């Protein structure tokens, strides 16, 4: 698998402030990667370093095979970036904005690419209008079109749905899914954990340094195992005891008339649990998985990091 982004101990300091501390990640081609962290965690700084906008103060990074700080021109040619603010020229039309950036990216078929992305994002009919008259959602979509004009291999999206209404957010998310299917490598920097959960193959929880790195599902599993909820006609201690006696069950408890079971692999062990419960006379009405929010995972790592920092300060 080709690695599209590689960082080895990538660091960035602003004076005494260590914004990014020895970040080491590998992002394969075609992956949607989420960078999560609180404000000031260094997410934007990381994206800026990987976009060759600012230089690292330590370590090294490679994007699309080019080294940050040494092949910046090549990196900029091969990446697209959606910055935190859309940043469009308000007095120019949507079409003129894109034409300008297309020429900066040395795009060969400027009119063709503009039409392709404006149509894709539903802005073709508004192409002659000044961008200053656009809503925030339209500007955001236009900024996404700008990031894609030159068909970059890697796309950095900083808060892609920030400030958008639900309809526009959905459109942007669907568009990101389309880009994923087209094989682009996408790095999303977001505070929207629900969005990260839906879009990202893997996430990095980050607060100056890396706190966790894996797929959302694996992180949930690592922290909480998997929890199956049995909705029974009558949940009682007998059924709980039978289930908990199974060696593969980590925990079984009763809550609100339901039997809640924590185990490693529900796909393999659920049939056996159902069989045992039915044998014991349980009337099973519904079985579902209790899905932990990514927010729980995120807060677990971020709070643990904060507590650790506080302890270090006290010591």
């Amino acid at each position: 698998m080709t690695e599209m982004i590689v960082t080895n101990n990538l660091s960035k300091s602003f004076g005494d402030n260590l914004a990014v501390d020895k970040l080491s990640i590998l992002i394969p081609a075609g992956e949607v990667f989420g960078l999560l962290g609180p404000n000031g965690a260094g997410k934007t700084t990381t994206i800026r370093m990987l976009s060759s906008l600012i230089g690292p103060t330590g370590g090294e990074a490679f994007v699309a095979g080019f080294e940050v700080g040494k092949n910046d021109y090549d990196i900029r040619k091969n990446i697209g970036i959606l910055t935190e603010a859309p940043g469009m020229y308000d007095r120019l039309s949507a079409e003129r904005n894109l034409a300008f950036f297309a020429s900066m990216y040395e795009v060969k078929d400027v009119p063709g690419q503009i039409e392709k992305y404006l149509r894709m994002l539903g802005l073709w009919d508004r192409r002659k209008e000044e961008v200053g008259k656009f809503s925030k959602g339209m500007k955001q979509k236009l900024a996404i079109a700008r990031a894609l004009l030159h068909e970059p291999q890697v796309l950095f999206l900083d808060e892609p749905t920030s400030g958008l209404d639900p309809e526009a957010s959905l459109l942007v998310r669907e568009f990101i899914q389309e880009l994923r299917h087209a094989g682009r490598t996408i790095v999303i920097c977001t505070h929207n954990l629900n969005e990260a959960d839906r879009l990202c193959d893997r996430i990095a929880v980050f607060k100056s340094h890396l706190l966790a790195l894996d797929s959302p599902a694996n992180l949930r599993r690592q922290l909480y195992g998997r929890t199956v909820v049995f909705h029974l006609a009558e949940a009682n201690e007998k059924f709980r005891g039978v289930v908990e006696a199974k060696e593969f069950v980590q925990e079984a408890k009763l809550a609100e008339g339901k039997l809640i079971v924590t185990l490693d692999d529900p796909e393999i062990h659920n049939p056996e649990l159902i069989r045992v419960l039915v044998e014991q006379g349980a009337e099973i009405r519904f079985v579902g998985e209790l899905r932990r929010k990514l927010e729980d995972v995120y807060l677990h790592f971020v709070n643990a990091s904060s507590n650790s920092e506080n302890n270090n300060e006290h010591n």
Partner: protein
Amino acid sequence: MNTTKIWEIMKKEWGEVFKNKIVLFAVAFMPILFTVLPLYILYSTQGGGDIAQAFSAAEEMPSEFAAVCGSLTGSDCTQFFLVSQFIILFLMMPIIIPVTIASYSIVGEKTTRTLEPLLATPLTTLELLAGKAFAAVTPALVVTWLSYIVFMVGTSIIASTAVFLKLLEPVWLLAIFGLGPLLSVAGVSIAVMISSRVNDPRIAEQLSSLVVLPLLALFMGQSFGLVTVNETVIIWIALILLVLDAGMLYFATQLFQRETILTRWK
């Protein structure tokens, strides 16, 4: 250096900046004022005026006026002397207009948050600054030279042939077509340097406008008879500006640090 990118930046600048009323006012109003004012003075002194009458009454012209006017008659000398004071105005245009444009175009990129996506493109700092600088200098020079042409056409109609020919002397042509571009480059370099460090277009413009002070001093000096603007003075100023421009352009490019601009600006 990619000239296509520079040209695209220039076109974008003009499309964006000239929709700004403050910039438009600076580019349009000043040339009109600086062209109409000398023409009005020429028109109002057509009859000669008091100075001309005084010259006529005197047996000979004072030596200072004779040095400036040469063989012109008293009335023509009056016109030429007054109008020649305004040569400096035609030198202010190429410096004030680009300073206004450059101040808005660079700080404007910061305020509209377009600088980051622009710097993320494969565009070199030199290409970016060249595009910005040419976008500021070109209209300033075009407007200055057009104003001068309008002024000369007006002079040919209002003033005598002798005054008109006097205004076509090398000192004027050297100032307008030689000194003008050098002053524009100086103005833009200073505007770029200041714009790289401040976040408000108005502050950038106000600070950059201070570059006009040496010209004002020259204007005052000429008006009070302390300095006579002749070929030698113009050539010296041009030579000094040539050296200063080279140095300032270098420093402007060095001061435009992408990282500093992106990370300091909030």
